[in-house]
């Protein structure tokens, strides 16, 4: 399906710069990387999480524990979907108890995905705290949830959507503001 592009929020270089800035902010707020761990929400949040980990390693010289979360089992909208969404694996290969977790997603909108992710993380233990980093905060929250690290805040009008493209799955890097595709 062709997306009608209205504007480009990030190009390739802008995206890299933002990920670098978010990485520095995370280190600054945590006062180093001790006790820090990163969990990305599938699909694109996980990719951003990988890039942030790489960036933090280049700054601090150490690997961070990295987890990947599939929140499908925790969704609150099962009853409204015609077909069961495909499940993918959650991989959190470290103990999260007493860790400072940074949860990472590409876009935050209603906050429902974040709520589901928080519930999913709690199934793995009791972290010391969970903070959240997103590439784009597009407003429109339906739950009392706010991100701690934000690449860019914009408010968008009805009929518009954010499209995040990551090289690893989309063969190109960039964040676009697009017209919402009308369902046929």
């Amino acid at each position, binding site marked *: 399906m062709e997306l009608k592009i209205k504007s480009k929020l990030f190009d390739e270089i802008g995206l890299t710069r933002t990920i670098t800035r978010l990485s520095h902010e995370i280190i600054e707020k945590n006062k180093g990387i001790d006790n820090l761990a990163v969990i990305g929400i599938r699909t694109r949040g996980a990719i951003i999480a990988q890039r942030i980990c790489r960036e933090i390693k280049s700054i601090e010289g150490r690997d961070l524990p990295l987890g990947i979360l599939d929140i499908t089992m925790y969704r609150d909208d*099962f*009853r409204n979907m015609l077909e069961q969404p*495909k*499940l*993918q*694996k*959650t991989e959190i290969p470290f103990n999260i108890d007493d860790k400072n977790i940074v949860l990472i997603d590409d876009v935050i909108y209603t906050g429902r995905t974040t709520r589901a992710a928080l519930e999913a993380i709690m199934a*793995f233990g009791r972290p010391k705290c969970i903070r959240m980093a997103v590439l784009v905060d597009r407003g429109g929250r339906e739950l009392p949830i706010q991100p701690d690290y934000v690449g860019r805040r914009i408010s968008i009008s009805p009929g518009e959507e954010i499209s995040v493209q990551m090289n690893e799955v989309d063969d190109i890097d960039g964040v676009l503001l697009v017209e919402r595709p009308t369902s046929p």
Partner: protein
Amino acid sequence: MSSFTLKHLLGLEGVSRDDITTILDTAASFREVLDRPYPKVPTLRGTTVVNLFFEASTRTRISFELAEKRLSADTISFSTATSSVKKGETLRDTAQNIEAMRVDMVVIRHSASGAPHFLSKCIKGTVINAGDGAHEHPTQALLDMMTIRDKFKRIENLRIAIVGDILHSRVARSNIYGLTTMGAQVMLCAPSTLIPYEAHKWPVQISYNVDDAIEWADILMVLRIQLERQQANFFPSLREYHNYFGLTSDRIKRVNRDITIMHPGPINRGVEIESELADSDKSVILNQVTNGVAVRMAVLYLLSGELKSDDEKTKS
């Protein structure tokens, strides 16, 4: 994802390769949940499942109940010993009464082949077969396939010999349908009295010599000799069965290959399989049990999708 086409899981006969693959992929995701410190997800919150066990079962019933609870479904379990069936109620009446209480899914085990099919015609909810007579036991075959896939990363072109009482085995029937659909080669091995008449219609090889089967197979799926059927004289004695068809370390050692051993349980140690072999590193019997919970979670999850599409249909 190719969409899941089943409304009930009554058996694996006629179930497509895509649907089986979807179940196995989904089960792999649920397998991870079982290793978490809090192994529970809210996925089926608000869904009610009744387990109707008209025939004795330990493993399958516990496995289904655990799967339902891990998914946060509301569950009710019922076995014949304590139910109105003792008072002469028919299956249809039992089912319709349960349905009148607004149940979404029914898991049924029954000694009569076809009971789940019958049930699926008289109630609106989704029916899952947990074993019916000598017909099918689809979730057992699915967990066997999941265990095979875990170990070999594929099912296609593997050689699987099913050894034992094929005649009375619903596990064998479900595995024959499932494994051949997935592209595996299947051999049945048993005394001729325990090979069913219809076996020649199945796409399988038949052997009456267990050493030939061991020589041929990558995987040996050993079935329980059903002691309760001994009076019928299908073979002279348990000892003779063990001597001719029992799986022993000596027999396995004769072939110079890595062979995997499976058994759906419960095991008769010293009859169909030597005790030591059942506990050896060739055996994946306990992996089968763990995978059973994950597979049943996957089946419940995928079939619960059908409940919603029914809601949608009635709305529109």
